[in-house]
Structure formats: C-alpha cells, structure tokens
C-alpha cells in the first residue's frame, strides 16, 4: 500500500516537473514557434494537473482554452508579426 501511495506521489511530482520544465523552455527558446509549442505543452500538462487535483471542469476549460485557442491566436500573432525573437 505504501508503495502505491509513493507511486501516486511520484506521478504527481513528475507532472509538476514537466509543467515547470516546459515553462522554463518558454523562457529559453528564442524561436517564438518553439516557445509556443512549449507553452502548449505547459498548458496541456497543467490541464492534466487539474485532472489529478480533481477539478474536471477546469481541466476541460484549460484544455480547450490553453491548448486550442491560445495556441491558435499566438500562431496568428506570430504569423502577422516578425516571428522570431531578435535578442
């Protein structure tokens, strides 16, 4: 029983690590599309985290908004501006 509690916590921890890691990638990438991809990954993992934290409504909303719409409008914005971070 102890083992499975530990396993669940480890799973939880890995998801959080993924969230923070992809957020760091957003900072790191100079290429804006890559940063958008990292942001989408971050949003999707946050949605999973909401799922784990028993908030299904919020998880659906976050998946729909964070993954679908924010990425779409970010892509539109990148398309209509220059597209690469200069420095």
């Amino acid at each position, binding site marked *: 029983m102890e083992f499975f509690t530990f396993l669940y916590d480890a799973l939880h921890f890995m998801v959080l690590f993924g969230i923070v890691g992809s957020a760091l990638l957003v900072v790191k990438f100079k290429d804006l599309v890559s940063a958008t991809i990292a942001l989408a990954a971050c949003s999707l993992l946050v949605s999973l985290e909401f799922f784990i934290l028993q908030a299904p409504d919020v998880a659906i*909303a976050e998946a*729909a908004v964070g993954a679908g719409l924010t990425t779409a409008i970010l892509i539109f914005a990148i398309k209509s501006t220059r597209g690469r971070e200069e420095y």
Partner: protein
Amino acid sequence: MKEMSPIVKTITKISFAAIFLFGLYIILHGHLTPGGGFQGGAIIGTLMALYLVAFGAVKWRKKVLSIIESTGLLVFIGTGLLGLTTGYFFFNFIGGTDNPIFGQQLNGGELIGDVAFPSNSAPLLSSGTISIMNMAVGLEVIAALTLIIVTMGLFAFAGSEEGE
C-alpha cells in the same frame, strides 16, 4: 489562407458533426458532468478553428456571429432578470421539486452506488434555469470565440500568402 492537404480536410469533414455534437453534449450536461456552457462552447469554437485551418477559408458573416453573441448574453441576463419576478436576481425560478418539468427529483442515492456514478448523476431536467443559462453561455462563447478566431485569422493570413 491556403487550405491544408485533402487528408486533413477529409478527416475534418468526417469528424465535424461528431465534435459538434460532443460540444453540444457538454453544454447540455453542464449540470451533471464536468463541463458546461463555457467548456462546450470552447470545444465548438476550437472546432471552428479546425475548420478554418483545414479549409483555409470561412464564409461566416461577422454580423450574424455578433447577433448570436448578443442573443446569448441577453438570454443569460434575461434569465437572471426573470428571477426577479418570483424571488431575487438569478433566482432559480423554475427549479425546485414542485415543478413538473424542470424540477425532477434527484435520485436519492438509489441509482448511485458507493463507487462512481453513471454518465448522468441525475435526470437531465433537474436543474431549472441553470440549463438555460448554460445554453445561453454556450451560444455566446461559440460566437465570441469564432469571432476571435475568424478576425485574427483573417488579419494574419489575409493578403500576403507566404509565397504559395
């Protein structure tokens, strides 16, 4: 905006009605399962984004969309205002157990066991005004998100198509 390959287009055509129905399902069951007006609306809005990106063109009229949006909001506020007639603002005036249609009884724990519950935790028509508000919000969100996507997409991709 150029359309994508026929494969994506065909898949979009096949799955369009299904995703649309799924969004409506989420909206309608907002009081029973996770989701609600916003979530279902966001799913359908994203479906419109899928349509836009797959077909590269849209023929929706902005005017119609904004009318739909206003209607949704008006229905929402109007439902709240109708609550004034019997109680207070946003009073659930057709809920309650004595209403024959919308006020169906919850299942008092007979159907629902000790583990989980089935696709519906209660009858569909047990929420009074909440369903109506969910639908109104769903309508509004669909229209608003579609407007956002269409406006920004056309702004981004109109005119200069990247050397194709």
